[in-house]
Structure formats: structure tokens, C-alpha cells
């Protein structure tokens, strides 16, 4: 038997009895950021591939929600800070070893870019829109002319946005559940899957809807592969990782994770999308809502379970 107890009565707020420093703000932002990254990725990808007219839903319509997602996400992050008046310190330096610093600067770059992307496509929703101010007209012309360069910048930034949150978590070697390099790609795949699902709602043609259903199916397959290998990796690792994995394999997070994230968030929408591709009538919002729900729950569960996992005592 081994027993280790703190006998001097430590009860630091948010640290004891187990770490609870991050609450709903962080998983909500992770979801919104991942979704925004997914939508912008496909929007810019199809401009680069020269298929803008075939995939006008992805390129011109779906990105309209991205600025709102990013602003709400940034608002949630701001509310989480405990020293809010000093938030601007984030932008006085760049720390290459801190994924949070990368994230702050990536968001600083991608939020205005998403607004520009919506602005140059605003006629899609408001056909009679005319920019009145001469500076705005010039900016609209400049970005429309250089759309390919804008798309390249956007595609790179969107990948960073989608993956850095997983890298941020995985850089915390103190939290055994997070300390796996699979988490970055898993969050990216989940974000791209959520983006592809939302694009289905904005799709302009049956072909576009089918292509994005297939893309979503492929991404769900990749997510399942990554999840299985993540747990295999934990079970084959050190005692702290085995205990972290056990939280999901019989422990308190087993039911929420496998039911909400895997079954409802991945398997059921995959089955519905396969049925839709086989021409069965499925209401379009149903697999989309389930994929978004699964993506949100993945982040909530990983954020909370990761804080619960520990090296000590």
C-alpha cells in the first residue's frame, strides 16, 4: 500500500482537490475556433484549386458566420482571463515556445481576414450592395484582385487555428490525458468535420452537398482512427497515462465520451450521411447538428478530463 496525503491542509482555489482552472469558456472557444478554421479552410482551399464556381456555398456563403464565431470565441476567452485589464500584454510579445502566444497572434490575423473574406463576397447575400466609401471600394478591389494570395494566407492560418489548440493542450506534460501528439490532429480533424457539416447547410447545389457529405465521412473516419490510436497509445504508456485512459474506459467520463462524442457525434451522423448519399430522405440539419454537438462535446470532455488527470498523489 502507498498513500500520499497533504497534511498541512492545502485547499488552493481551483487547484484542490483537483485542477479546475478552465471552465466552459475554453471548450466553447475551442469549438468555435475549430469550426471557423474548418469553414475558412474549405473556402480558401477551393479558391486555390480554382473550383470557386462549383463550390460557391463553401467559398462565398458559409464564411459569413465565421467573424461572428471568432468574435464570440474571443469574448469567451476574454471572460476566462483572471487579470482581464492586462489582456493586451498578449500582443506586446511573441513567445515561440508558447502555443497560447501563437494562438493569440493567429487569431489577431485571421479575424480581420475572415471579415475581409465576407466583405468581398457580400454581394452573395445582398446583391445590390455597393461600397460607398472610396477607401472601402479600393480595399474591395484590391482583395478581389489578389484573392488567390488571400486564399493561400487564409488556408495556412486556418490550419494553424484548427491545430494549435490541440498542440496547446498536448504541450502540457503535467496533464497526462492531454500529453499526446495525437490531440493536435484530432482537434484539426474535428474542426474540419464541423466546418464541412456547416458547409452542407450552405451548399448551393446537390453536387456540393454530396461532396461535402463525403468529405465529412472521410474526416469522421480519420477522427475515429485517431481516437482509437490515442487510447491504444495511452494504454501502452506509463502508469499516469494508463490512469488517464482509464477515465474513459470504465471511469467517470466513459459514458459521456463514447455516447456523446463517438456514437452521437460521429457514428450516427456517418450512418445518416451514408443513407443520404444512397438517396434516402434525411432532413439535412440532423447529421449537421449531431456533428456539431459531437465536436463541442469532444472539447468539453477533453478539457475537463484533462484537468482531472494528474501525476501526483
Amino acid at each position, binding site marked *: 500500500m502507498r498513500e500520499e496525503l497533504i497534511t*498541512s491542509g492545502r485547499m488552493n*482555489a481551483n487547484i484542490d482537490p483537483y485542477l479546475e482552472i478552465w471552465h466552459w469558456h475554453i471548450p466553447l472557444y475551442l469549438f468555435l475556433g475549430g469550426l471557423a478554421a474548418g469553414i475558412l479552410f474549405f473556402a480558401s482551399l477551393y479558391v486555390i484549386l480554382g473550383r470557386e464556381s462549383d463550390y460557391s456555398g463553401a467559398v462565398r456563403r458559409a464564411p459569413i458566420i465565421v467573424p461572428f464565431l471568432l468574435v464570440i470565441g474571443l469574448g469567451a476567452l476574454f471572460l476566462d*482571463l483572471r487579470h482581464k485589464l492586462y489582456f493586451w500584454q498578449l500582443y506586446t*510579445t511573441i513567445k515561440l515556445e*508558447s502555443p497560447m502566444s501563437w494562438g493569440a497572434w493567429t487569431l489577431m490575423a485571421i479575424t480581420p481576414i475572415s471579415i475581409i473574406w465576407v466583405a468581398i463576397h457580400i454581394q452573395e447575400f445582398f446583391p445590390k450592395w455597393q461600397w460607398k466609401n472610396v477607401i472601402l471600394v479600393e480595399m474591395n478591389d484590391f482583395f478581389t484582385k489578389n484573392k488567390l494570395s488571400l486564399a493561400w494566407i487564409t488556408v495556412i492560418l486556418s490550419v494553424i487555428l484548427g491545430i494549435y489548440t490541440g498542440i496547446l493542450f498536448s*504541450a502540457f506534460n*503535467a496533464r497526462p490525458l492531454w500529453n499526446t501528439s495525437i490531440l493536435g490532429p484530432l482537434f484539426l480533424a474535428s474542426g474540419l468535420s464541423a466546418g464541412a457539416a456547416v458547409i452542407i447547410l450552405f451548399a448551393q447545389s446537390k453536387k456540393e452537398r454530396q461532396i461535402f457529405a463525403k468529405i465529412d465521412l472521410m474526416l469522421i473516419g480519420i477522427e475515429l482512427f485517431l481516437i482509437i490510436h490515442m487510447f491504444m497509445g495511452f494504454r501502452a504508456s506509463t502508469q499516469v497515462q494508463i490512469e488517464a485512459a482509464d477515465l474513459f474506459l470504465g471511469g467517470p467520463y466513459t459514458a459521456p465520451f463514447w455516447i456523446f462524442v463517438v456514437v452521437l457525434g460521429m457514428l450516427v451522423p456517418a450512418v445518416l450521411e451514408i443513407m443520404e448519399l444512397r438517396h434516402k430522405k434525411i432532413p439535412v440539419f440532423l447529421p449537421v447538428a449531431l456533428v456539431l454537438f459531437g465536436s463541442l462535446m469532444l472539447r468539453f470532455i477533453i478539457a475537463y478530463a484533462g484537468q482531472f488527470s494528474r501525476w501526483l498523489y
Partner: protein
Amino acid sequence: MRYAMAIDTKKCVGCSDCVVACQTENDVPIGYCRDWIVERTDGTYPQLEIEIRSERCNHCDNSPCVRCCPTGASHYIEGGIVKVTPHKCIGCGACIASCPYDARYSHPDGYVDKCTFCDHLIALGEGPACVAVCPTKCMYFGDLDDPNSDVSNVLKKRKYKSLIPEAGTKPQVFYLI
């Protein structure tokens, strides 16, 4: 200069004087502590063994808390001591999540706080409050780079360990076993 601490687990009685001295010296808010006592019991009755440790921030050489800080609020000062600059801290909590020793806490004023090896006392030529107040004199503090310091001498003579070395943090608080 590399400051480090050595604590003799054979002499520590778990009186918690170090906990209270630190709270008094550093104006730690009520309900928080920068150091604490851990009791480890091994074995099956009647073959029981106990180890008592006074734990705190380990001022690691490869500290994850300095690495993950997005503003540079968490930084090293002379001697390898890890400190937090309150006006640069945004209270994001990354350093708190990154410490495997749970050594940091969120001060009610918003910034992140932790043991500082009493660097304000070191500047005056004294040592940390916890070391000064220990009734069994089981704590040693000094410069590892000075071969004649208390810490260097005691680490030469005794077997020692550090906490969770496999986390790769290179902690600088050693426990004499």
C-alpha cells in the same frame, strides 16, 4: 549561480511552520498556501514506513510554466528562480495547468502567484523564510554552483531524490532520503 533547496525527510516532522512562515512573510492571501506538507505512508501494518516532505515550487531548470506563458510574465531571474511579473500576467491559467507539482495558484487580485524562494530576502543576504523558521533545521538553501554552500555540501554527503523526475522538468528542490 543556481539556487536550490535540499530538505532532509528524515528530520522533517511535518510541523507546518514552513507553511505559516511563508504565508506571513509573503502576505499570502487567506485560504492559499505556497508550500505544504505531504506525508507518504508505505507498506502494510505493522511494517509501515513514513516519509514527510515540505513541498513548494521546484524552480525547475526546464520549467513548463515559463515555456507556456504567452506574455513572458513567468520568467527566470538570476539564480534560476522562477518568478511572475504581476503586471504582465493576464491570468490565462496556462502555467497553472502546466505545473505537474500543482505549485501555482491564482491570486485573488488576478495574477498567478507561487513560491519565490523569498528572492526579496536573498537580496538582503538572508535565506527563505521557511528555511529560517524550521525547528529541526532540516532545510538547506544555497547556490549549487558554489561547492562550499550548505546545499552543495549536504548533497555530496547524502542520498537524495527529486519529485517526478520523469516529467522532465529538472526540479531544483531535492529531498534527502
